[in-house]
């Protein structure tokens, strides 16, 4: 499950699995609690995520919308090349930061 590191209004969430329908509700609750608790700069670490389905994509967009409304931003790090390509092809890099996973 997700590991959260929080520092003031910033939080990094290490998501230890694929971001798909079966886990989306739990993650949504966790992220919502963070945002309601004052987090505006949200980083999601996708180092262990190799699959993103439509529900998962909707969740990422919801997270972006929430932190944006609070004056902050969303950043995805360690994104697999496939998922980064997908998010870019849908022009989501216009809305949040997408940092591709480095080799090794």
């Amino acid at each position, binding site marked *: 499950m997700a590991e959260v590191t929080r520092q003031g209004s*910033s939080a990094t969430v290490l998501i230890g699995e694929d971001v798909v*329908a079966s886990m*989306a*509700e739990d993650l*949504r609750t966790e*992220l*919502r609690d963070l*945002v*309601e608790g004052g987090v*505006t*700069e949200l980083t999601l670490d996708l180092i262990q995520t190799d*699959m*993103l*389905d*439509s*529900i998962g*994509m*909707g*969740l990422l*967009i*919801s*997270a*972006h*919308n*929430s932190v944006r*409304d609070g*004056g*902050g*931003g969303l*950043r995805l*790090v360690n994104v697999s090349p*496939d*998922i980064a390509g*997908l998010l*870019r*092809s*849908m*022009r*989501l*890099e*216009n*809305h*949040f*930061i*997408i*940092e*591709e996973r480095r080799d090794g």
Partner: protein
Amino acid sequence: MASLNDTVLSEFIEDAREHLASAESDLLEAEGGAEHAETASKILDSVRYLKGASSLFGLRGFKRLSGRMELVLELVRGEALALEKEAVDALLASVDRLGELLELEAAGDSVEPGAAEDRLEELLVLNLPMDDLNRAARTRTVSHHERELFEIAEIILDVTESGFGTLYLLRFDLIADVHRKGLTPLSLIRKMSEAGQIIDCKIDIEAVGGLADSASRNIPLYVLFASNLDKSAIAATLDIATKDLWSVQELFGNDSGGSARRSGSDGRNKESGKAILPGEGSIDVEDLDAMEKAFDLAMQGKGRGNEVSTEDEEPVSVESVTADTDSEPEETVLRDIPAAADPVSAPEPDRGGEDVEMFGKIKVDRSSPETVITLPANVTVEVAVPLRDAVLSALNRSDTVAVDMSSVERLDITMLQVLVAAQKSAGSRGKTIQRVGDISGTVDRCARMAGLDEERMRLEEIEAGLFLKA
């Protein structure tokens, strides 16, 4: 974006440097090469990413110059501009300048693109006719329900349609059209990439809501998509309702203008020779069974209008053979094909000579001991009925039918199913359908992509040589 910290910006800078290095290397390799459109397409992906991300950081000069590069690369991709030395040099100068702008603007300086931008403008002025220059400067907005979705330069609209076919606006719902159909967004993108060219995409993020809202029930995705397929073929290939796709010219209310612009594009049609397939398409067993059954019944000569029957069965209507009552009406066009296989009610073919019959563009030649069916270049759903009639006519009169597919440049999965069903049905009656002449790579590729490899052919007990190269 002011609220994002310096670490994020420096990571973007590192990422951007890699993209720029890759673009530089691609440009250097491209000069003198033949695959200009492919190179431009690859660099475009990077440039679009950099342009989008730079806007998040407020890097205005960087964004402006990358936007101009995007236009030039679009023109190269659409073959309106050659990627020769002059263009390569101008683009390389822009790549260098983007690297500088990255450092300067990230440090807080306000900087103009300068000479690099002028060079791109000069490239356009020297290489494009005045009319094209004007159209490069004018943009059209693609809107839907008063929602402005995409802005596209008029010339890009033209070169896209010349190079890739008709430009469409597609609307998907990532929940209903993707998730509930067991697909992922990535598989959808791959499927679209195989059926045409994705020009731009946009998710309606406002429709999704925030974390405090319940999980979104719809995630609208709009796609500007160019393809040589017509609407019904796109609907079938991408499994999308025709109500969710529009030709862009239709949206502009400018059909005559669109047709006029497309009229000179045939010679540059890059899609010719490409197999038209659903992205992860494979032969549908139920459809195949239905087609085979329809062929069986038709070959028994029991057809009665739209009804066919066997001695042991109740009369079976067209609809009941291929029942799919939940389908959109337009999808039934494909599914009705096998059940309508009825030689008795088939229209009288044109006579092309004593031993030759023409079924549309399909020729059936009985001048030699074996009947030869010659297929035209395009064997797509539009020729479904003539193909069915031609095969049935040939099988009804000969024990051995040869199919000549040497001219086939485009073949879709439905037509492949028609041929396989005919082959199976014929085989069960001791008749043979075999290939004559060479086979194009398109047919072989189409068959393999549809899952018809040697092993599957063996299991289906059909002759692999009809569709696969040895």
